[in-house]
């Protein structure tokens, strides 16, 4: 997994609430058996017409946001299914950070497993960041995970909370499974205990 330390990038505004995982990546793209290659299909129905041409109004189709690495989005981002194809598609498109007032639980977890930083801010902070994102390619947002803050192009600084374990893994690009297997003795012991106390499991 790619490390996430500090990101200086264009942020795209998506002021819509309840952007669900079906919008981020519709089902016809879930048939892949790989993790990569989903970027061209991200936001498929919002992004393309039925004939495959670009919808000019969609933010990521606009010249100014083509290279955005940050999304600033409305409340409850990523609701819906558990499909990790959603963060895979965002990542493959180039999105490394999503900022919203709230995220659906599973999507939020899935982001961290894939090197994407989801940031939760207050409504007021979101308004500020949304405004900044609307400036287009002239502005750059700086997301600093180490210091847990976001700096707008005007120099406003917003701090955010993040779970320390997830932060540690993201900054160091660590694989959870390797870390967990270091605790295999605890898992063995638990399994032995359960085999006696709850043999029906």
């Amino acid at each position: 997994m790619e490390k996430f330390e500090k990101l200086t990038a264009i942020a795209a505004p998506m002021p819509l609430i309840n952007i669900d995982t079906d919008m981020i990546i519709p089902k016809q793209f879930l048939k892949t058996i790989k993790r990569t290659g989903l970027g061209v299909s991200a936001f498929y129905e919002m992004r393309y017409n039925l004939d495959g041409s670009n919808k000019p109004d969609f933010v990521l189709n606009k010249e100014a946001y083509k290279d955005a690495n940050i999304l600033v989005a409305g409340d409850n981002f990523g609701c819906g299914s558990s499909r990790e194809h959603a963060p895979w598609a965002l990542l493959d498109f180039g999105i490394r950070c999503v900022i919203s007032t709230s995220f659906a639980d599973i999507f939020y977890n899935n982001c961290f497993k894939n090197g994407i930083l989801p940031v939760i801010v207050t409504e007021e902070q979101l308004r500020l960041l949304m405004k900044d994102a609307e400036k287009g390619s002239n502005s750059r947002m700086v997301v600093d995970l180490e210091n847990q803050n976001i700096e707008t192009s005007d120099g406003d600084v917003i701090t955010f909370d993040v779970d320390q374990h997830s932060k540690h893994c993201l900054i160091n690009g660590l694989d959870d499974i390797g870390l967990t297997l270091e605790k295999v003795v605890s898992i063995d012991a638990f399994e032995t205990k359960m085999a006696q106390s709850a043999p029906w499991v």
Partner: protein
Amino acid sequence: MAPRTLYDKIWDAHVAHQADDGTCLLYIDRHLVHEVTSPQAFEGLRMTGRKVRAPEKTIAVPDHNVPTTLDRLKGIDNEESRIQVDALDTNAREFGVVYYPVDDVRQGIVHIIGPEQGWTLPGMTIVCGDSHTATHGAFGSLAHGIGTSEVEHVLATQTLIQKKSKNMKVEITGHLSPGVTAKDITLAVIGETGTAGGTGYVIEYCGEAIRNLSMEGRMTVCNMAIEGGARAGMIAPDETTFKYCNGRPNAPSGKTWDAALDYWKTLFSDGDAHFDKVITMKGENIAPVVTWGTSPEDVLPITASVPAADDFKGGKVAAAQRSLDYMGLTPGTRLQDVTIDAVFIGSCTNGRIEDLRAAAKVVEGKKIQEGLIAMVVPGSGLVRLQAEQEGLADVFKNAGFEWRLAGCSMCLGMNPDQLGPQVRCASTSNRNFEGRQGRESRTHLMSPAMAAAAALTGKLTDVREII
């Protein structure tokens, strides 16, 4: 010991390791696997030379991509779907997990066959790379969806890295009125709390109206906990639960059953346990409901009319306008005047025998509107068999429904069962998102009885006027 909730008790019983910062390794008792969210996880194991730690606790079944037509055993036409199902077949056999292939009568939607085969039992931790894993919480287990990276993590370690959620209680008091079902309860709750109302919580559903539900009904309620944003939904086990589990193929028997039962009877929230959020609704106040928009929170009683965007506040105004445009609805139209083109009865929300009985009761001896696309898709091969033995299949066929083989089908249309653009469907599934049942298709969520009623009239219909 301090009073604990049901969730607290199951959580405590499964912590295999706790780090100083409170991060836990939660031991997983059952891992359900389907073809869509698992190929990358098995590939990850292969690349790192890891094995499945507990193949006997890992249950795999193809459901999302499988065709539901009678000729499906001759193979899957769509190449990508076929590759995905074949990958599961190869992975299941190579890693030695429990497996129900597509030609096994026990095959079906993963959340239907887990309980049916007795893999799902009270007090367990159950995960699956699928958000509707919440269904299994109906047994008083802690069950939730995970992403593919977590699927790989569970395959390799039989644990999950977790932080505890908060406790939320949803109490439904009293009795349901005739024509009102478990689906109406769960939709009404989401209508009340919104799709983010449960975010960060595990919900325990309780109250007389919940107690009176069958296991099928309880599964319907918990199934949609995720639509309310909750990590999981659960219902304390009781005699109804025990009776359902007893005698299932993978449930314990003899002395082990007795021991299990003794433990299961301790699984309830202590009287003075703390809940961080409490919602109470009166069963009598719940009407048969339908959704009008593209979020499961867009719930209204069938007797209501289509709202206007201005009826809402904040970000919901724009979202509601977008929904109205997408759904092709005019504010002020009576919901009962909305004509439909299709009816889908099935899914892990409402594809169980009781759901089919409820729908069959409404259409028995009658004909559905001509020209409707109408299908009944049983949740599993065994549900299908039972429905045939009970004569329900004939009721549906005589009424004009297609009678299909088991799978996810038109719930999300990864197989050929999809709706065309602007086609409006009365659906017993769980999501009405844009494009969910087919690009630009329009979904109205409702109970099986309500969907059956809509099939008869060709419009959204109040089932109470038919029964």
